[in-house]
């Protein structure tokens, strides 16, 4: 119970701190401007306006969600170490693991609020254009949050040992590779055994972010099966737990 109280206290504080960040609101405003832009641009799409709004809207929300996540997550712990505010927290009987998990939950809550805001605007626009209530887009939102939870855990891990700029670069590389693993596997199919072995290791160890991508399905009103949804949730949960555990170890090994 005490552990849970500590984690929730840190989470609440992290949420308050991140949700007040002015740069976050600037990114959110840009994302809403982008969504409005898709509404305008869809009017010149020769009758495919709903398709354009769905495909560009979902893609835009994903890109802005990543920007928010990487921007907030990569400086989370590093900032506290630099400002020395972490010492006050660790002086109390709060473990580094509790700090890491609390930061994760707090940041996930902030990012969820941002994603929810963007989705509400997106759903409003689709309904305005006569697309009705896009229920399946809500599933895409859930998958986006699972994707972002892995990225948050990754960003927190990086922020335990790297500067915000370096952490952001690592995160961007992982995001790109995470979406390209299927392409890499296809590309090495005709290569030698060593290349295939390296690709296999990368494929199974690196976060396969394509698992969380159902945007292409949502555009056509299709949805994954219950078994698929359950496996993706389990994958995200286990991967986040592993990353947070490694982040805790990294944080513990750091001399403050």
């Amino acid at each position, binding site marked *: 119970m005490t552990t849970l109280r500590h984690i929730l206290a840190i989470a609440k504080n992290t949420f308050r701190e991140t949700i007040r960040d002015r740069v976050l609101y600037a990114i959110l405003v840009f994302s809403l401007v982008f969504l409005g832009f898709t509404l305008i641009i869809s009017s*010149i*799409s*020769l009758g495919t306006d709903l398709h354009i709004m769905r*495909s560009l809207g979902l893609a835009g929300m994903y890109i802005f969600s990543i920007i928010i996540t990487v921007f907030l997550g990569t400086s989370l712990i590093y900032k506290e170490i630099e400002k020395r505010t972490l010492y006050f927290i660790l002086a109390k009987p709060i473990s580094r693991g509790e700090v890491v998990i609390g930061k994760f939950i707090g940041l996930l809550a902030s990012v969820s609020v941002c994603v929810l805001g963007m989705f509400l605007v997106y759903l409003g626009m689709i309904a305005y254009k006569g697309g009705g209530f896009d229920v399946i887009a809500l599933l895409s939102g859930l998958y986006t949050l699972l994707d972002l939870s892995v990225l948050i855990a990754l960003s927190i891990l990086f922020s335990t040992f790297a500067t915000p700029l370096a952490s952001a670069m690592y995160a961007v590389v992982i995001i790109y590779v995470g*979406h390209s693993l299927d392409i890499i596997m296809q590309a090495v199919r005709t290569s030698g055994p060593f290349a295939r072995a390296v690709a296999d290791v990368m494929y199974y160890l690196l976060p396969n*972010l394509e698992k969380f991508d159902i945007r292409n399905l949502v*555009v056509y009103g299709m949805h994954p099966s219950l078994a698929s949804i359950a496996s993706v949730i389990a994958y995200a949960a286990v991967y986040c737990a592993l990353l947070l555990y490694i982040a805790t170890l990294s944080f513990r090994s750091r001399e403050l």
Partner: protein
Amino acid sequence: MKHSARPSQAETIFAAGIIVAGCILVIFLQIIANRVQPQLPPEPLVLFPVPVIHAVDVGMDSAAASLVWLNLIQQIGQFAGTYQGFVSDLDAITTLDPQFAYPYAFAALMGPALDPAHEKEAIAIGEKGVARRIPDWEIPFYVGATYNVLKDRDNAQRYFAIAAAMPDIPPSVRIGALSYGSGDSKRETTRQIWESIYATTKDDLTREEAKEYLKHLDILDTLEVAVAAYRTDTGQLPDSIDTLVNKKYLPAYPEDPFNVDFAIQPNGQVIATVHSTK
């Protein structure tokens, strides 16, 4: 320690005035620069090959296809229908996002008009959409309409039958698709096809194309009525359309949207011919 004083109202107004004047000067210089810069002819945007787009779009294939589609629409508008990359762009769109239905139909119907050099490839894109069983009646219907224009009745009938079997086809269009080839008048069949397209399309370019075809058919009908009236009065067919104009059976030589000439057949029917420079 000296504290910095808050600016006075006069200073604030002066600063605002400087900023406004600066913005006006920037806008003015931009207008001047646009006028004096040489106007280069617009160049079409060259797209990366599909495998490159697929590799860098981090899984957002549908969004990438949408952007290529929007770019294509802009290029058609900018290059007044002579855009050379029409078919290759549509091929890229349908490869990146195979479920994006409308580009298949658009390629089949508008391809021969907008990119005559790649007419076969454009129709092949439409046929690809039918082969992939994309659930959109417009794809086989537009392929059938194009084959009808090319006077390939067998293929036209085949694709109209496929369109007629699709669940989302409007009832009035379905009747026309089912009855293709069963009536005597090919022109009436063709008119029904274009009327269906005109009534159902949400796309201005396609509606414009349908309107032009219907106008062309109206002109043929009007000419045949004038030929029939001339034959009734004189007992023989006119030599040419110019005779009908000279004898006041027509107010003027009709301006066809496809810039074709007209010839009168021995049975009184009027057909379109290649435009000759007079």
